[in-house]
């Protein structure tokens, strides 16, 4: 695949904080167009906080996040608005707007951001829901959906504006294995057919090995990125701590 010179996402020397203090520092990695980057690490290693920084929701103490060549935290309001409309995010809990039906959840950004008319919005909502296997759930409120369905509805909402960069926080958690595998296939399909760049935070190593082109491993103890590379390479030749995490049932071999 031909890669453009400017990465879709470029993270440089990023420090990640939460309310308790510094979680990560010196985070460097990038995601090129059409790549799936998996952010992996133990619980509490700062994966979700990192994702919030990438989404522009949390100001970094240090470093930069560049999206499509623009610094997310130093761009003017108009540029930031344009960047955000090219990004989609699926939160771990779905974050669907609870007072709106699934259809309305999907149609709201289409109305406000894309200025689509009602028939066009409805058609797009139907198509996106079909993509995630929720054809008949459009009229339901989020409270009427199961956890897995809520996740898929949230993914449909994130996909509706056809983002070039999609951020996913634990997309497979709470899904049954079949649904999780379908989600992985959908991720691959989006990357291969539409060139969508995907950054996903996950614990699911099978999924990482299946879909990810690049893996960013966060080490909770070091508070840094311990390794970046292709998951298979890291599994076979990565640092011992990374291999132990990726394959906890195997004794660690020297690299």
């Amino acid at each position, binding site marked *: 695949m031909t890669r453009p010179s400017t990465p879709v996402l470029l993270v440089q020397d990023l420090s990640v904080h939460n309310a308790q203090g510094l979680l990560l520092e010196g985070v460097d990695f990038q995601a090129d167009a059409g790549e799936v980057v998996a952010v992996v690490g133990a619980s509490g290693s700062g994966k979700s906080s990192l994702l919030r920084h990438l989404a522009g929701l949390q100001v970094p103490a240090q470093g930069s996040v560049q999206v499509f060549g623009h610094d997310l935290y130093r761009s003017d309001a108009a540029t930031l608005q344009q960047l955000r409309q090219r990004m989609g995010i699926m939160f771990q809990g779905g974050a*669907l707007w609870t007072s709106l039906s699934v259809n309305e959840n999907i149609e709201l950004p289409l109305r406000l951001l894309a200025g689509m008319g009602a028939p066009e919005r409805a058609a797009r909502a139907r198509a996106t829901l079909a993509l995630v296997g929720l054809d008949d759930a459009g009229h339901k409120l989020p409270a009427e959906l199961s956890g897995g369905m809520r996740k898929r509805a949230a993914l449909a909402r994130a996909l509706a504006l056809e983002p070039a960069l999609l951020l996913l926080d634990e997309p497979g958690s709470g899904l049954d294995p079949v649904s999780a595998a379908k989600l992985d296939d959908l991720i691959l399909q989006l990357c291969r057919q539409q060139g969508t760049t995907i950054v996903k935070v996950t614990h699911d190593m099978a999924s990482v090995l299946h879909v990810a082109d690049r893996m960013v491993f966060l080490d909770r103890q070091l508070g840094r990125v311990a390794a970046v590379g292709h998951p298979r390479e890291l599994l076979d030749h990565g640092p011992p701590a990374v291999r132990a995490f990726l394959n906890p049932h195997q004794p660690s071999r020297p690299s």
Partner: protein
Amino acid sequence: MSADTGTALPPPAGFAFGRELLLALTRVGRRPRLFGWREVLEQFDQTGPRALPIVVLACALVGLMLGYMGGAQLARIGGQLYVADVVTVGMVRELAGLMTGVILAGRVSSTYAAHLASMTANEEVDALRVMGIDPVGHLVLPRLLGLLMAFPLLMGFGAVAGVAAGWAPAVLSYGATTAEYLQHCRDSLTWTHLWIGSFKGLLYAVVLGLAGCRAGLLAGRSAEAVGRAATRAVVSALVLIVAVACLTTIFFTLLGY
């Protein structure tokens, strides 16, 4: 996601909140078709009709109290017929708005704060921000406009209820006739009292709406934060309403109105 709040991109606070609101209003002016007018009507429906019985009841009780207290003092100088004036001016200019504000501080500010805080805790507000949808324009403005539509109506009904309740002490305890009571009500009610009362009511509505919405949007991402936001909204709304009432009364009195 972890419940980190420390360095989250801050929602607009203080003057920035007001600036965001003005920007949102400007956007609505430029592209009114994209604004959630349906949400404005929904907010009006939730704020207005549902609060009407309690507002009318509270204002009627205040009118009754005002009638008895005013009558007792006026009777000492033989001016008990002026109970109607005290009740009418008091209710229209000051107390209908104040009582409506106090009741809506408990009903509306807390509801706004709890709802928005719950949306904040569930990352629904973050979802708006990430997509580039302005939470102030999308969540605050419809509530504020709905409240601005409902408040004058509630206040109007409250004033009528208070004045009507003032009939009881004037006629039953202080010897006025119904015709005299009504005549005094008509004579004492001027446009000045009406516009000052309405102006104050609109100020109270803005204060109530902003106190509730601001507390909700500034809440942390936890369940406890929802309760704290509701409490903060009610307390700040009440304090601000009383402060605004006091300042506007002094201001208009000094101006000779």
